């Protein structure tokens, strides 16, 4: 613990700024994690910039238009039994993604326990919940396009930028979820087949990082696009 100034033992978690200096100046690999995990984090960092640029662009057009912005609470309301419930589908989609994040976290845990049957099963459950999310999004898009007449260049409710930002941001996020479903399924099958028995199960954590990130992006989209 108190080995200040020296190169820290692999994987130990001593606190302090000194560890940053030792890790970055040790003439060896900087990040003491598997390279795949470091690269996934760096990819996610770049993705953070992309999504933030999208959300910032959305903020900019929403602030700059003098035309009233359509109220998402009403646009995304669903009528259940004659009662209009605001944001119902979006709420369900939010809980759906949170559920899948939990199953993913468990899959990572079982992966490191080398319980590959449970790990693969939990990953496939995660992928299935992700697929349900994409399905609900398709339903949402269809409703908006067909019933409410929202287009990327205009809509009957207010500021025409609403459609452009909505389809771009949720579309790009949906694409990430779809890619994640494919990625999860492929890795789950390989886990099940025993491909990682020798290499170890870091791959499950790496897939997990991607999946949690997709959920993370949704947290921001939900707050800024649907609730604001």
């Amino acid at each position, binding site marked *: 613990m108190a080995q200040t100034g020296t190169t820290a033992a692999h*994987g130990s978690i001593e606190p302090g700024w000194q560890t940053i200096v030792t890790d970055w100046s040790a003439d060896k690999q900087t990040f003491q994690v598997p390279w795949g995990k470091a690269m996934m984090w760096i990819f996610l960092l770049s993705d953070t910039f992309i999504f933030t640029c999208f959300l910032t662009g959305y903020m*900019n057009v*929403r*602030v700059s238009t003098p035309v009233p912005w359509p109220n998402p609470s009403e646009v995304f309301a669903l009528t259940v039994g004659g009662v209009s419930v605001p944001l119902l589908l979006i709420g369900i989609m939010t809980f759906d993604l*949170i559920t899948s*994040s939990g199953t993913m*976290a468990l899959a990572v845990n079982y992966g490191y326990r080398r319980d590959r049957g449970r790990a693969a099963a939990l990953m496939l459950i995660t992928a299935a919940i992700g697929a349900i999310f994409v399905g609900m999004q398709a339903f949402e898009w269809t409703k908006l396009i067909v019933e409410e007449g929202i287009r990327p260049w205009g809509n009957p409710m207010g500021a025409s930028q609403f459609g452009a930002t909505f389809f771009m941001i949720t579309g790009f996020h949906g694409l990430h979820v779809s890619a994640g479903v494919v990625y999860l399924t492929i890795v789950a099958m390989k886990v099940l087949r025993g491909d990682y028995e020798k290499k170890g*199960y870091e791959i499950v954590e790496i897939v997990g990082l991607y999946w*949690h990130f997709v959920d993370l992006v949704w*947290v921001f989209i939900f707050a800024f696009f649907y609730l604001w």
Partner: protein
Amino acid sequence: MSEAIGQQHPLKLYFWIWGLLFLLSAFSYATDFLDHGFVRWGLILTFMFLKAGFIIAIFMHMKWERLALIWAILGPPAVLLVLIGLMAVEGDYTEGTRLNFFSDPIVPEGHGAEH
């Protein structure tokens, strides 16, 4: 032994965080029933940052990583705050310009149709 088997934490912790995220999502959804204003926006941001924090720290295991990785990943997005600030100012300016030049001029009573 932790280096041999990677990020390994008790399942109980994940179940707690999972439940907490559900609760925060429910609170988040509930803000939609508040009127638009600083209370609503403040709560939206509070629940958003709490959820994001728990996902990154626990589910993505950032809490247990070394500082060299934590700051390499969480540091750079700070520059995005500059972009957000600039674009907010820019958006305000654009709106002002549009209101000045592209909206119908306010014509005082009785000075309308002559010209």
